[in-house]
């Protein structure tokens, strides 16, 4: 009783109370559905439901490992998602620092708006646009032909170009939106630091290097850590809408492969098996990087 009393009297009690709805929602929609994971170890029979279906052990995983396609699909996934991860760290930071240096407000605003608009378009729409632009009769090939006299390249049908196109188009679409967080972090840096540095005779670049970047380092570390979670998700919408049979070699990623073989082929168990593995790897990567971030940068969230 005394303990409870103390809890109620705790000054932070009402803050904790505010966590309750989140806690309920999270349990309902995130923790509870986790039981579906057992599907990865079962042979699903609809009438018996997920829990009633018979266990099959590691059968689905064995099938996955036996399938020679899995390895090149995994390789594609890693190449594309690492490519996206790195570009999505560098480009938005770069863009944020540049925007931060801009003194003319309306230029800054309009650049920001323009770069951040594509985020709101779905890949279904953008895929149509990219297909047109990149087709043999598209704008890019027209320029290549007229200006450089080069032969038309079938970009989306080329195994050489497909991955770069996925990475570049993803940067184009998302960079503006990711910049927002860095810009916010930059505003939190104490202006006095810049003034002091200026008085000490620091150049613009030196100010950027010694104040701005260290100032947002923690945010960079945080976002990098979090983004590792998605290392095995290369972006289904984008790839599914843009790939074709010619680029399965380089463009087929886990999600598209599972979609074709798992969902379309009604193999829900296998889809679950892959999803489960993805989550496990994502979780352990986060744990590792988080520990590293703590050890080397002395940074922690909790």
């Amino acid at each position, binding site marked *: 009783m005394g303990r409870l009393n103390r809890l109620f009297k705790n000054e932070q009690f009402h803050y904790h109370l505010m966590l309750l709805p989140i806690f309920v929602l999270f349990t309902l929609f995130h923790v509870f559905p986790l039981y579906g994971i057992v599907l990865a170890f079962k042979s*699903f*029979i*609809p*009438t*018996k*439901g997920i829990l009633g279906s018979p266990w099959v052990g590691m059968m689905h995983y064995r*099938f996955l490992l036996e*399938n*020679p*396609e899995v390895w090149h699909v995994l390789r594609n996934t890693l190449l594309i998602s690492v490519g996206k991860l790195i570009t999505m760290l560098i480009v938005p930071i770069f863009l944020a620092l540049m925007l931060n240096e801009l003194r003319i407000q309306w230029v800054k605003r309009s650049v920001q708006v323009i770069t951040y608009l594509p985020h709101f378009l779905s890949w279904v729409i953008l895929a149509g646009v990219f*297909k047109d632009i990149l*087709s*043999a009769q598209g704008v890019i090939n027209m320029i290549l032909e007229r200006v450089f006299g080069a032969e038309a390249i*079938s970009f*989306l*049908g080329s195994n050489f170009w497909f991955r770069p196109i996925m990475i570049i188009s993803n940067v184009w679409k998302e960079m503006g939106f990711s910049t927002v967080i860095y810009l916010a972090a930059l505003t939190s840096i104490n202006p006095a630091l810049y003034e002091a540095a200026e008085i000490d005779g620091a150049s613009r670049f030196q100010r950027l290097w010694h104040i701005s970047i260290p100032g947002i380092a923690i945010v960079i570390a945080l976002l990098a850590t979090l983004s590792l979670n998605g290392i095995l998700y290369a972006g289904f919408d984008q790839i599914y809408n843009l790939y*074709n*049979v*010619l680029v*399965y*070699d380089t463009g087929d990623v886990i999600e598209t492969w599972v979609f*074709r*073989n798992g969902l*379309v*082929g*009604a*193999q*829900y168990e*296998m889809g679950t098996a892959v999803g489960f593995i993805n989550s496990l790897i994502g979780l352990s990567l986060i744990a590792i990087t988080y520990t590293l971030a703590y050890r080397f940068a002395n940074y922690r969230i909790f």
Partner: protein
Amino acid sequence: MKMRNAGLSTVLLASVVLSACSNSDENKPVNSAGTETQTESATNTPAATETTEAVDPFGKYAETLEVNIVFDRNPESEKGFIENSTYENNWNNDFWLEKLNIKPVVKWSAPSGDQFNQKYNLMFASNDLPDIFVLRSLDNKQSARSMLKRLVDSDMVEDLTDAYNKYASDEVKDYYGSFDNKALDYATMDGKMYGLPAQGDTYSNAQILWVRQDWLDKLGLQAPKTVDDLVNVARAFKDQDPDGNGKPDTIGLALQNQFMDNSFTDAVSIFNAFSAFPKSWIKDSSGKVVWGGVQPEVKKPLEVLAGMFKEGLLDPEFALHDGNQTTEQLTSGKAGMQIGSWWNGSYPLTFNIDQDSKADWKAYIFSTDDTLHAVMDFPTTQFLVVKKGFANPEAAVKILNLSTSISHSKFQETLDRRTELDSKYGRDKVDAPTIIPNFGLGYLDTTLQSVKKFEDIFAGKSTVDTLTVGEATIFNNSLKPNHDNPRKDAGKYKDYINWMSALSAIAHAKLDIQWNAFNGSTPTYDAKMGSLNDKQLQAYTKIIMGKEPIDYFDTFVKEWHAMGGEQITKEVNDAVASESSK
């Protein structure tokens, strides 16, 4: 994908019209096989249940029977519905209510295409079935029979043996009997019949070649008869500027990325012409079931296609184009040939015909030996099934009886209604169809029989009296008017070329039809066939596009076997063996 579904629904619509025109042999006695099944099941069923009840195949329920159903709405057709006619509430639903006192209650509906397909497939996974529904494969990855098997294994559907034996009409039994009751056997597992199999016009599904006749005429070319002719015509269409705009912007043959699936702008017939059957299980000379896609016969047609690609007779980026984009090519008059089905006059060629008054399409058969080779899926690709536990399973049989009768124009009021609507709203407006799951049965060559009758009439060899009510409707409404006044009405013209060009070409061809040797699935098949089909499409596409030499086919075949093909072939043969030994 969407467009392909629109194409499919056109077929469905068309087949309703079609089945309206077969012979109705009401006097024909019930065949012996039919009676046999009846006696057989009589021994199975306890005699007590059969005593008192008066069995009427078309019996109306005393109290309105509410049947829980699902359906897909086609937004395109919906535009053509007459006022006050919706899927949920229309004359056709009322007709069923009046005849059988059956009332559909919508469980859910979704726009046809991906949305419907996903919901439909999920409904099995969640064991949330409507009372009566048409079981069919929407993704072509598994056959309807293997879907049925799954449902039976999971104890989700009702045994219909007794209901069929008691309630099936003579007409229905006659149609099944015309194909030796093979369709019924197909729906039977362990001696119990779990679904009412569809059976209808089948041979007309043979693929044909549509050619721009006006281009042929302009360039003074003969109609193609062989594969070589096809290539030559394609070459002329590319080089000789058939559209006369002075630019070399035409391609010979329209082709889409999924060219291995029978739809339209595919290439399956080119393979078939060489007796290669890339997407089917076939029996080899020793009687063993093998996958057609890895047989040496495939090499020759691949070489032909690769040659065509190299010459620029195909679109250089065809592998990136889906049905929508190839349709666009046809519409804009960039392509002069496409391989497809008899109904392609209505889709996708319709857009070209509407846009270009000169565009004149004709259909031809081509092969290497004067015979039209094809593997067809067993005539039954869907079943009418009843959810386990539904109290009135015989309703499904009654529905089949009635829908078969309707589709053979046995009800004057349905015909009168059509005439009434035509005169009031014109041909473009229709009642919404009934949403009660149903399909009418027919013979395997129903349409081909009809076409020959039409031809005889046009040739003066016979008269319209020989036609059934349904046939007469088609003849009088579209064929005759267009024959007398060619192309005056675009809609009639499209019907006319569908019938008198495409179906006629098939009716006069020497047909060599094999049934797909295996329609079910096996464990490894389920697990790996998807990837293997991907692999096959990929290998074929690369060979055709010249990214790999023709010998790459041998490498592909080796990989195919190693990646599970060998195991699947073995399992398939075991399954076929156990099926035939039963």
